[in-house]
């Protein structure tokens, strides 16, 4: 095998790409990973992880404000925003180094630069505009991720109109912030900045916030966010934005008319668009649809030797989906006997706002639309001892159960640490446990997890603490 010939080339070193490279190496392939920026991708460097670090500061801030309710006296309290950001960057940097170490340990060759397809089995890698090397492989996995979508006519990335990347490295806290979009990213930043005293307004085109969640969760979360000072404009859109030296002026259209409002800064969080351009994908015959690469259940594109995983191959735009697609695709390429395509009905979603939101499977509306005869379970955290002890008893766990089979069709949670509770439902669904098996499972007392047990029991009218 010549030096630039591999079994597998992975383009992109995010949670899809680096996992694919490691798994392929474990299965005996010679692997090259091409990354143009930082290992770990958006998730580690500019997404999941640094925002969780920021939100942790906000959470501690929130607890300190409520210290007296816990019988504690705090004499002096303040926010050193630049230290908050510095901690977030330090956490991200630490993890990115960890990925480099993992790849090295697994003998993955890391090639810095931008990969472009030359043929169905080769790419050229350029760095700073100059071609450095041509690599060829039996298989090539595209894992180039996605980037923030712009609003029509409004491009983020200027001084005062931010994308997520600028928002998480802001040099100072704004006095007011307009967030466009109420998906997970918009809501997390709204929660973060509102906690630190920023006047946050969120504009959402749909008739409810978090439009992917169950309607009950959307409505409850909205009320909770409003209690914390966030203002929402639903069925609204921003038609134009003007940036001045000191402010952003936005024209917001609602059902009742159009208004011009002035904000300190604005954040565009209206979803993402696949990084499928500048790879010469069309040149080698890979099909795209709305910028996403078209794949089959194993991640294979129309070109048999080219595969795509993660955000570049379509939503949901989640790191865990990308990593699982990576393993499925690589094991399939390696003809591993246990290769299984990912179960698209079983991808959990988490929003790390205050309160947190987590969900899996069908919403009530989706279950009914799919002609399921359902039973609903619901348990409020106010009935959970641990939640009361934490002083954080807002929220509930809703479960959707198939009336005939007891299959857990969906679970929808809002409240303290629910992002750490959802996995029980993911596991139950993956193992195809029904309400009976979950009902028989002993959840430890006192924990928040008892609430999910009770929620499942309540679907059969067997809840004990409500």
């Amino acid at each position, binding site marked *: 095998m010549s030096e630039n010939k591999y079994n597998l080339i992975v383009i992109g070193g995010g949670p899809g790409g680096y996992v694919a490279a490691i798994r392929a190496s474990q299965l005996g392939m010679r692997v090259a990973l091409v990354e143009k920026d930082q290992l770990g991708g958006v998730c580690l460097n500019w997404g999941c992880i640094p925002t969780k670090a920021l939100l942790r500061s906000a959470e501690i801030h929130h607890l300190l404000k409520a210290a007296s309710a816990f019988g504690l006296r705090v004499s002096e309290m303040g926010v050193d925003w630049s230290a908050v950001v510095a901690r977030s960057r330090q956490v991200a940097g630490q993890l990115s180094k960890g990925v480099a170490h993992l790849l090295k340990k697994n003998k993955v060759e890391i090639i810095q630069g931008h990969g472009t397809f030359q043929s169905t089995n080769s790419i050229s890698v350029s760095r700073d505009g100059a071609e450095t090397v041509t690599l060829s492989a039996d298989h090539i996995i595209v894992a180039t991720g996605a980037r923030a979508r712009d609003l029509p006519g409004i491009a983020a990335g200027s001084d005062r109109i931010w994308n997520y990347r600028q928002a998480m490295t802001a040099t100072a806290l704004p006095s007011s912030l307009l967030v466009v979009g109420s998906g997970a990213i918009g809501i997390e930043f709204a929660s973060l900045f509102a906690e630190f005293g920023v006047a946050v307004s969120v504009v959402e085109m749909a008739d409810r916030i978090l439009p992917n969640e169950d309607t009950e969760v959307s409505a409850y979360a909205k009320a909770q966010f409003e209690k914390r000072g966030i203002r929402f404009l639903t069925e609204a859109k921003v038609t134009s934005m003007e940036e001045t030296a000191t402010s952003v002026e936005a024209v917001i259209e609602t059902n009742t008319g159009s208004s011009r409002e002035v904000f300190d800064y604005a954040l565009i969080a209206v979803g993402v668009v696949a990084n499928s351009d500048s790879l010469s994908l069309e040149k080698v015959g890979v099909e795209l649809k709305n910028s996403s690469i078209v794949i089959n259940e194993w991640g294979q594109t129309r070109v048999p030797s080219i595969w795509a995983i993660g955000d570049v191959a379509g939503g949901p735009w989640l790191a865990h989906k990308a990593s699982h697609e990576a393993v499925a695709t690589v094991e399939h390429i390696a003809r591993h006997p246990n290769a*299984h395509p990912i179960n698209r009905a079983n991808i959990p979603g988490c929003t790390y706002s205050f309160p947190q939101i987590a969900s899996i499977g069908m919403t009530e509306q989706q279950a009914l639309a799919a002609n399921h005869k359902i039973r609903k379970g619901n348990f409020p955290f106010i009935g959970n001892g641990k939640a009361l002890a934490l002083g954080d008893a807002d929220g509930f766990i809703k479960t959707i159960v198939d009336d*005939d089979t007891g*299959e857990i069709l969906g679970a929808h949670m809002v409240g303290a640490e629910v992002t750490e509770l959802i996995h029980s439902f993911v596991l139950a669904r993956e193992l*195809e*446990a029904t309400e009976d*098996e979950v009902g028989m499972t002993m959840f430890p007392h006192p924990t928040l997890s008892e609430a999910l047990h009770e929620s499942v029991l309540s679907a059969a009218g067997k809840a004990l603490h409500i």
Partner: protein
Amino acid sequence: MAYTVTEYVMPKLAMAMNEGTVADWLVQDGDYVEAGIPLAAIETEKVAYDVESPVSGYFYSVVPVGQTVDCGTLLAHFCTEPRRPDAADTSANNSTDLPADTLGANEARSKRDPVAPSVVDSASDTAATFELKRLKSSPLARKLGKQLNIQLDALTGSGPGGRIVKRDVMAASENKTHQSAQLPTAATEVSGDILATLPMSGLRKTIANRMVQSLQNTAQVSCHWESDITRLLAQRAELVEQEELLGTRVSVNAFLIKALVYAIRQVPIANANVVNDEIVIHRNINMGMAISIPGSTEYDSGLMVGVLHNVESMGLVAIDKGMRSLIARVRNGEATSDDLSGSTFTLSSTAGIGPPGLKTTPVLNQPNVALLGPSTPIERPMIKDGEVKACTMLPLSFTFDHRALDGEPAARFMAALNNALEKPSLLLT
């Protein structure tokens, strides 16, 4: 007397039985059932049994009719009072919490000792067992299977490690609906290319699995020759003349079995099973006989191996009668567990069906190490004592497992068999 509960579990009615289906409860929930009365019809893959109540008590079923469960799975409760037991009555942990005066220590123990009817003992013989793996399935798949009346053991799981999951049951259910909806019209519609689609399930699946396993796990060698049975047929003709006296029309197969007994005495290793990396050579000769049975449709066929035990101690007439009644039992679904297990050698004949002179390469009936496949005789001119004579030649195909048996003993065995068939007076020895 305190309220006690005796658990009744799926009995293991044969060595080869790993699971069973409750085909019918013969008593009603709440009935007081005396020990020894017929309790349930239990079906395995191969045999249906009526089982008797092992104890007396008020009967409450746990597993409904139609459900297939592993041996040892709780099927029903026998209670000392006419009350269905609740969780507290049946949990061993809870029972120990009860005060001693309401539930004695002995009773508590007896509660935990599940009862089952005595097991049919074929343990002395490592039989030709069906190797059924534990069925891996999800709780949801099991529930759906019950609801949609899909037997999970007929499915191939697509989950991790072959686990049967929801999509497998749903796919089977769709197939079922599809077939029942399509087959009647297929008969009337000439345009359809597919005559019938047969599910690889039940007996078909068992045959398929066993054939593949046999070919994958053994070193099979097939040999062919023809034995001159002209004299044997003449002797047989004498016995056929005495049909009324003997009570049976002695078949060529009976002679064949007698000849096999002779050859096995010369080369005992041909009468062996390979079990757990050991070659177990048997003193008794239990003749496994491949018996064709009707398939699930007119296009399908079925195959089972019936076993005639201890043929070494039987005369021609006993062998012939035993063989005929065994075949009848297998074809009528009346075979007992013994009828279907314990073979030490296999006879798989296509005589009378295939063309004269047919040679085959029969697949070993594991764990037996050898199998004889006779087929339809053919008339040939043979040179005997320098003269051309018209002879009836019996084509024989012999498959042996080279893991257990080398060419030399195999050749000696075939020579001994040939000798016995050509000189039938040896069968009297």
